[in-house]
């Protein structure tokens, strides 16, 4: 219980904020419940980050105090403003029970897989959790984290979420990172199924969730305690919120979309790239107002993003200084000419075919994606659909370009990173292919 307490507090913070943003006459939806988890972790990680800057060290007591006061204030504010709460006859409880019943076996399997690796895979303990452990133990010397490894410049959301768990539990432990990874996995599935249920028939939405959770690489990697599931969750949430913003023109969803774009940039470097891509796409699509009525409150989105971006900028560009390995003669320059190198392109193509598309660990996921998108191109006819597709296509293009121009040995780099990077897209792609293939279809 103590290991879940931090997650419960995070959820409560997120839930209260979403309730405050909601209209009095509109009830909270099940999608909001799964967004609350991500929003809560985002807000608390930001609180911890700025408290480190303020006190120049980790002060567990003050961090706890700040967050408990925040919970109480949010609760009182919501009561004072008489904002909505879940009605007893709400379908949320039914939805949650259905989700629990259907996904219980697979979530249990994911818990078992997580327990198989209590320290997670290599990068989990040597990087994400090391940073949390270093921040907790280092006192005023916390900035030394930037001497330790160049990777400390990677955004901090996951490490700070783990740190939050340790602060609440009162000590470092293996269970907090496990609980965090399971929670993000569960939230991703919940968000996927519930947001699809708003558009499609329930059995199709549940099939999407089961299909995603059945993919061997997805369920294994989600429980490896890496940041990819966190980035995958925030990407799906961001695009679902942008879609909802287009559908409802609501300031609630546009502000949340902005906050989640910011959150995406605080998850990992690929998240920064995705946040940038989504922002550019939003600006361009808003400039192209030809389709009347498709205009969205874009300033609210940017306001939300700007609330979070400073933390990413601080971690990536302001705080870092020289790290131990920086004086090593490592070849870091990239050659644009590599993009035109036929051999490298052939290696990349072969790798994608054999190690991604036909890789049994992906359980046929990419084959389904290719078939679904190829056979439903005519269905991509609204701005929100185009935003989904262009985000996916541009991101894949960027990472392929990155691999083609890598200074590392190409095969080695592809082996260690490509599947992990593509993983971030998987929940969003699952949403997109199901939405595309089954919207306006009566057959199933």
């Amino acid at each position, binding site marked *: 219980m103590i290991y879940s307490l931090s997650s419960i507090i995070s959820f409560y913070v997120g839930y209260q904020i979403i309730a405050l943003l909601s209209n009095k006459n509109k009830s909270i939806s099940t999608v909001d419940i799964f967004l609350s988890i991500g929003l809560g972790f985002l807000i608390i990680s930001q609180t911890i980050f700025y408290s480190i800057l303020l006190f120049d060290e980790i002060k567990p007591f003050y961090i706890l105090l700040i967050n408990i006061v925040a919970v109480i204030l949010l609760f009182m504010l919501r009561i004072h403003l008489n904002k909505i709460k879940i009605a007893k006859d709400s379908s949320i409880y039914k939805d949650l029970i259905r989700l629990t019943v259907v996904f219980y076996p*697979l979530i249990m*399997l994911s818990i*078992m*897989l997580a*327990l*198989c*690796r*209590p*320290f997670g895979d*290599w990068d989990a*303990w*040597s990087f994400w*959790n*090391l940073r949390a*452990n*270093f921040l907790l*133990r*280092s*006192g005023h*010397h916390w900035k*030394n984290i930037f*001497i*330790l490894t160049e990777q400390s410049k990677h955004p901090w959301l996951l490490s700070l979420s783990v740190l939050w768990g340790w602060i609440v539990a009162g000590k470092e432990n*293996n269970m907090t990172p496990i609980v965090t990874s399971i929670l993000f996995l569960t939230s991703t599935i919940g968000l996927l199924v519930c947001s699809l249920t708003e558009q499609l028939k329930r059995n*199709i939405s549940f*099939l999407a969730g*089961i*299909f995603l959770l*059945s*993919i*061997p690489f997805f*369920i294994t990697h989600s429980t490896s305690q890496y940041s990819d599931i966190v980035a995958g969750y925030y990407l799906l949430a961001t695009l679902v919120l942008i879609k909802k913003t287009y559908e409802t023109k609501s300031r609630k969803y546009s502000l949340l979309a902005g906050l989640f774009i910011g959150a995406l940039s605080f998850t990992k470097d690929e998240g920064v790239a995705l946040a940038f891509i989504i922002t550019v796409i939003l600006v361009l699509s808003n400039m192209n107002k030809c389709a009347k009525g498709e205009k969205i409150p874009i300033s609210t989105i940017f306001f939300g993003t700007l609330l979070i971006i400073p933390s990413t900028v601080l971690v990536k560009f302001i705080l870092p200084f020289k790290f*131990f*390995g920086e*004086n*090593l003669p490592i070849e870091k320059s990239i050659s644009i000419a590599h993009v035109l190198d036929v051999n490298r392109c052939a290696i990349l193509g072969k790798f994608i075919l054999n190690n991604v598309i036909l890789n049994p660990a992906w*359980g*046929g*996921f990419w084959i*389904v994606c290719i*078939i*679904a998108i190829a*056979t439903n191109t005519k269905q991509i006819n609204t701005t929100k659909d185009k935003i989904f597709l262009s985000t996916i296509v541009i991101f894949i293009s960027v990472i392929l370009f990155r691999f083609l121009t890598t200074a590392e040995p190409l095969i080695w780099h592809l082996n260690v990173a490509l599947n992990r990077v593509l993983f971030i897209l998987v929940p969003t792609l699952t949403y997109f292919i199901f939405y595309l*293939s*089954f919207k306006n*279809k009566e*057959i*199933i």
Partner: protein
Amino acid sequence: MKIKNNLENIKTLFLTLLIALLTCLNLFSHIKNVGNITNVIAAQAKIPPVGYAYYGLKKYLKELNIRQAGFITDRISANAGEDVVTMSEYQSAQYALSPTLLDYFNASNHQFMILKLFNPKNESRMLKESQAESIKKLDNGIILIKQKGNK
């Protein structure tokens, strides 16, 4: 129009069946693995935490107020920075001994170093090469050493 709708329906039905089939196959592979997973979980209980072998040095690093130390090993590899065995050892040590910073890349720049011996016979050679003396020796070939002279 009717033919077009039928084609759409066939397409959707085909995709649904494909997804359902793949889901069943994937789930079946999970079911086959459940027994193995249970065994692995049971075995995990006996595995010590990451970097456990280095825990004995924590007290000395704290007593001597060592905030940064070098990390060296007797393992010879063409590209040590990418050698999985060396890196695993270094990163385990770093995880266990954090917040002391372990510098693998410029180990000799530090007065104190942690020496990991994969072969205990190399101890005297490594100490001589590093011009260092042993401060604390643990099991598993782990030694806290101090370079002679001012650093």
